[in-house]
């Protein structure tokens, strides 16, 4: 049976995260005053984001994406290319392309499973040559973000269950699949495949990986 390689994105293949992206949008908001206010709010919110993320990725998502409320979909899409060129592209880890190319040469399907916003990751995935992905989607009403995500929300266990369903649908053997992630919140996603790899792991994931004898890779 065929296999696939599933990648988390933020912290795994690129060094940026959701906050970098939001910060870029805040900086580029319409009008100096609005831009300053949003930027200041982002900075002020950092401790809250960090605490929420440490507690649970779901709580973090609930709080964080509320900050997008009121943003226009056109604007987010319009700025996505600049976001990629200015912020994300320089943040791609040096070893990422090497890893993808080796993995591709083994005939593995390349799939990104990320909690980032679909709008923001498309240019990166295009450049990395990855066509299959699942990402979070903001809910828009009348072209304005409601601050909520459309289900299923990609985080923790949802990623694992998406991988399971996807593999079943595509006839892949999970035993032959690889997964790469950097954070403890991605432990479920790593646990469902036969070849998990902690990639640039945080302290908690590193110690867990060591306990499970999983490979630990640095792409930095």
């Amino acid at each position: 049976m065929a296999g696939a390689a599933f990648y988390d994105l933020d912290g795994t293949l690129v060094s940026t995260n959701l906050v970098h992206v939001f910060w870029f949008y805040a900086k580029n908001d319409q009008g100096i005053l609005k831009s300053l206010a949003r930027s200041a709010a982002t900075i002020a919110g950092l401790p809250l984001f960090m605490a929420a993320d440490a507690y649970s990725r779901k709580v973090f998502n609930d709080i964080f994406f509320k900050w997008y409320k009121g943003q226009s979909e056109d604007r987010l899409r319009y700025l996505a290319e600049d976001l990629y060129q200015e912020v994300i592209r320089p943040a791609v880890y040096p070893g990422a392309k090497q890893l993808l190319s080796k993995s591709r040469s083994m005939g593995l399907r390349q799939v990104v499973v990320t909690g980032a916003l679909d709008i923001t990751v498309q240019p990166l995935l295009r450049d990395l040559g990855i066509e299959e992905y699942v990402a979070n989607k903001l809910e828009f009403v009348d072209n304005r973000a409601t601050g909520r995500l459309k289900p299923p929300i990609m985080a923790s266990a949802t990623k694992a269950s998406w991988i399971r369903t996807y593999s079943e649908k595509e006839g892949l053997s999970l035993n032959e699949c690889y997964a790469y992630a950097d954070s403890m919140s991605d432990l479920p996603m790593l646990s469902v495949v036969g070849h998990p790899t902690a990639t640039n792991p945080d302290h908690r994931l590193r110690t867990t990986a060591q306990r499970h004898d999983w490979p630990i890779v640095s792409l930095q």
Partner: protein
Amino acid sequence: MPVLRRKLDPGTVHIDTDSAPRLIHFGEDFWEEDLPVGTRVIYPKPPIQGLPNPRGAIRHAINHPLGCDPLHAQLEPGMKITIALDDISLPLPPMVTPDTRQTALEVVLELLSDHGVDNIHIIIANSLHRKMTEPEMRRMVGTEIHDAFYPDRYYCHDAEDPDGMTSLGQTRHKEEVRINRRAVESDLVIYININLVPMDGGHKSVTVGLCDYESLTYHHEPQTILDSDGYMDPAKSELNHKCVRMGGLVDEHMNVFHIETVLNNRMYADQLGFFNKNEDDFTELDRLKLQATKWSTSKLPRSLKRSFFHNIPSPFELIGCYAGKTEPVHEKTLERCFDQYAVKVKGQCDILIVGVPYISPYNVNSILNPLLVQVMGPGYFFNLYRGKPLVRKGGVLILCHPCYDEFDPQFHPSYIEFFHRLLPETNDAFTLREKYEEEFANNPSYIQMYRSGNAYHGAHPFFMWYWGENGRRHVSKIIAAGAENQHVPELLGFDRAPTLAEAIADARSHMGRSAEITMLHLPPILIPDVE
């Protein structure tokens, strides 16, 4: 007056009722054991006196090479030159500084500079071994050379760099030779080697040290191992024959100037010098040092003991240096190597006892994990012979090692999966190769860890397993004496005995009460020349 049997040969001691207990390596510890009366203990030869002027000897060798013009006569300004060096797997343990490679490099670089050659890269020929860390690389060549060349012009070979390898074609046996591109495209390759045992050096230096996974698969495979009658006698080693064949292609396409160096076996510095001696000849000072070492190591946790031993460099000395074309140079090197390491032994034994120390070629500054215990036992120690194996067909091999289930996740990640996932399924080398070798060799995570970290290649644990194939098939039983758990020996296919005495009793019950017992007193390394 008849001469006592135990006095017949200084290299061989027969245990008597009044013999002192023997020192046996046991991982990071050592045992003092009373062996059964009549046991034959084989000791290494005393170290050959080192050359008084190593730098002069190296200079003389490159000015009077074998089979080609002197190095200086081959140099022209503007030449592209690659200097390849053996990696940290040699010598064992790493030697006191300056390392012989540093001394040779200093001589060579000075000569190159005098001839206006500045397009020089220094490559560590690590093949699929782990890449060396920066401090290890610095230590090997000295700060001055390191600072001048690292990292752009002094680096480790990367067998997985898609643009870094090139094919030299195929031998008449359809073996494809793929070698480091920089070396192939150089006008001259200077290979500086360290020969510790006869399986090192010669054509193996370039064809293995600078090749990729595909090229290795032609000889690092179970059938080649089975077709080799020991690894230390090049004439009987199929592994060596294949390297020679592939090396012929290297010599056709590349101009390689070998500088081969032979070291003596002065492995232990003064504080551990008692390991070099016959226990019957211990002085009071030796006994004091032994007790002090035993006492202090007994107070340390294993990891600290390990780092204590790994941090004691060996005062090896240069005893021979030859330069020039591969084959004539290696012939001389082997001769000198056997002068130091070959020990005449009369007859085979039924039961062979070997203490497995804390170090092997594959765990410098790291853990001797279970697979490496296996590679040391039925792999290297069994194959340390010329003529016939020291233990007879169907005999018993007793390995003294705690067999702890510990792995270094940074250096040996693929070993962990191999040991815990594959060995429970099968320990047949051919099945393992057929079913899993490619999967491990191509595992992107392992490749990434090999390329950008310090991990052994994903395929390396397979080679380690194949290494033990001859030993496993030759003996009827391998007993891990002192193994602290049941599952490690079981997965390796060994029996377990809590103590050496029980291991010997078990072996005797298998081989008979009159079984001939021999103990190899190593390290330092010795190669029994079995008559």
